[in-house]
């Protein structure tokens, strides 16, 4: 029995989807190249099945689900305070930022508002998570293009931020620090000065990277004009964060739809880039790290005094209702749609994670590009596997 080409490709894709095979198969009019789930250039276990004609991609299919943990189902059997432990692990590089929108949604349903000091410290940790997350992206970006050194610089300087997060929350990666109505603890003594010193180092890191990576001729040749996403396409795929702003769409939830955080009391700006190519996305991220260090400085200077916890019952029962809160996380817009039936735990939680939307454009974007550009395009879209699969 002879299979048609389309049938054969369909069969391979079905097999590949289940992770049963790992093939490079030649067909009459093209070759199927499988990348992943384990590949040096993937962050975790993303798998890409690309069909090639010579060096050019005819079609690319993204396979995910190797890290699906079923958080939406698990949330239904957890109580509200327990959920933050779970959702911490969605975007593991900026984990405090995962807790915030869920807590804000629960607070909205309970009609509780955190005191000003708690809001400011939340915003502080939120921005520190962004710096820790995105500074590693910058190092990793260079690594994927074959430059080893920036990755070490990134790991070195990120440590200063992680130390600050750890000294407040006790956890380097999974703080579980946000509470309904406020925060678990106040800041330790001497923390403000240490943080401001760390921000100086991070700004130096940004300047260094701007010259070392972004100013590099090879980097520019490999990213400029490659992987262009027009603004309308970006919006119809629901791209968010730097991927959207790199396409020239001026939208930042911190500025435009701020709920429960201190951004409207600070002086900062939203960075956009009109080009929409790989370079634009990476460039916007670098500017955002630098902007975040300035936000952190302002937060440290203007930190209000007072309580860090509003009055909430000891056993938290959330009144019946529905709430949707999205915040501008390091990877893009992250939202939680929380349905409560008046119980101690949520009835249904829909987790809108940034990377799921951001990577869903890959099939569209990779069509027609050359094989080496797959790496730069995927790197510039910047995804965390846990944030795709949840």
């Amino acid at each position: 029995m002879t299979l048609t080409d389309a049938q054969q490709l369909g069969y391979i894709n079905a097999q590949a989807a289940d992770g049963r095979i790992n093939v490079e198969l030649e067909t009459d009019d093209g070759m199927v190249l499988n990348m992943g789930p384990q590949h040096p250039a993937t962050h975790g276990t993303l798998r890409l099945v690309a069909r090639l004609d010579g060096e050019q991609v005819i079609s690319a299919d993204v396979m995910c689900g190797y890290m699906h943990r079923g958080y939406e189902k698990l949330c239904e059997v957890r109580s509200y305070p327990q959920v933050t432990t779970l959702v911490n692990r969605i975007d593991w590089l900026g984990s405090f930022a995962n807790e915030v929108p869920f807590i804000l949604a629960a607070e909205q349903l309970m009609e509780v508002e955190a005191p000003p000091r708690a809001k400011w410290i939340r915003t502080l940790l939120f921005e520190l998570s962004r710096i820790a997350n995105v500074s590693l992206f910058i190092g990793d970006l260079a690594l994927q293009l074959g430059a080893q050194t920036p990755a070490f610089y990134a790991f070195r300087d990120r440590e200063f931020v992680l130390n600050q997060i750890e000294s407040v929350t006790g956890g380097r990666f999974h703080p579980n620090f946000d509470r309904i109505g406020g925060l678990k603890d106040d800041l330790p003594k001497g923390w403000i000065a240490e943080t401001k010193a760390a921000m100086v180092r991070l700004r130096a890191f940004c300047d260094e990277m701007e010259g070392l990576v972004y100013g590099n001729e090879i980097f520019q040749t490999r990213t400029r004009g490659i992987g262009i996403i027009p603004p309308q396409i970006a919006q119809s795929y629901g791209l968010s964060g730097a991927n959207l702003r790199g396409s020239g769409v001026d939208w930042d939830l911190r500025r435009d739809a701020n709920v429960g955080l201190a951004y409207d009391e600070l002086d900062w700006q939203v960075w956009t880039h009109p080009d929409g190519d790989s370079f634009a996305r990476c460039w916007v991220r670098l500017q955002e790290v630098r902007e975040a260090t300035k936000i952190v400085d302002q937060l440290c200077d203007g930190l209000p005094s007072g309580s860090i916890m509003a009055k909430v019952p000891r056993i938290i029962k959330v009144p019946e209702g529905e709430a949707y809160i999205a915040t501008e996380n390091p990877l893009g817009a992250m939202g939680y749609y929380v349905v409560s039936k008046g119980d101690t735990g949520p009835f249904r939680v829909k987790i809108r994670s940034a990377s799921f939307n951001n990577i869903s454009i890959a099939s569209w974007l990779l069509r027609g590009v050359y094989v080496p550009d797959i790496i730069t395009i995927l790197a510039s879209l910047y995804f965390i596997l846990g944030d795709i699969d949840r």
Partner: protein
Amino acid sequence: MADDTATTTEGAPAAATDERRAALLAVFAEHLGNALLQSHIKPGQGLWIRVATTAWPEAAAVARDKAGLRFFDFLSAIDWLPSPYGRCEDSSVDVPFPPPMPDRSAAVPGYAGGDTRIQVLASLAKAGTDQRVLLKADVSDDDPRIGTWVNTYAGAAWHEREAHEMFGISFDGNADLRHIYLPSEFEGHPLRKEFPLLARVVKPWPGIVDVEPMPGGDPEDDAAEEGAEA
């Protein structure tokens, strides 16, 4: 910013935000007519609209072209049936397996109402603003089926695949409804309430009855507080 103040104060900002949401609702009402079944505005917080199942693709077109909501946020579904397993942590005894299914009438829909057990839910927004609409539509219990959005919002393709595998909803017109997370031969729809969370069925969750006292804490004091709260 405006939202934040609107939730806490009853003054002018809340009214202003309401007007904006009411204006957005009016756009949908004008173009959808009778297909707009019910709506709900929470001042300063959100706008929910329930449309007829048959008008689901049309609602997307109206949202994009008339209301200017070009940003596709997410598409998912909600199963309104109470879980037959209860909230495992609340029960001190093992739940019988399989448990009796709750009565269909126990499925009470949320904002903007509904007639069916499972509803499709989607969120659309306008870039550069805080304008957002949450759209809902009923899908029938026996044959959950609804039109696709991929012709209006390309990003809906993956979300519909996810809703298809998690809730068993078919999207007419979406040719690619392969599983996205689970193996292709996986049976069942995990986010439906009757689907058991096996880890919890095998071993009951210890929950609140087993909480150990904090080291150094006063267990009697904790118990007294809990009693007072209950």
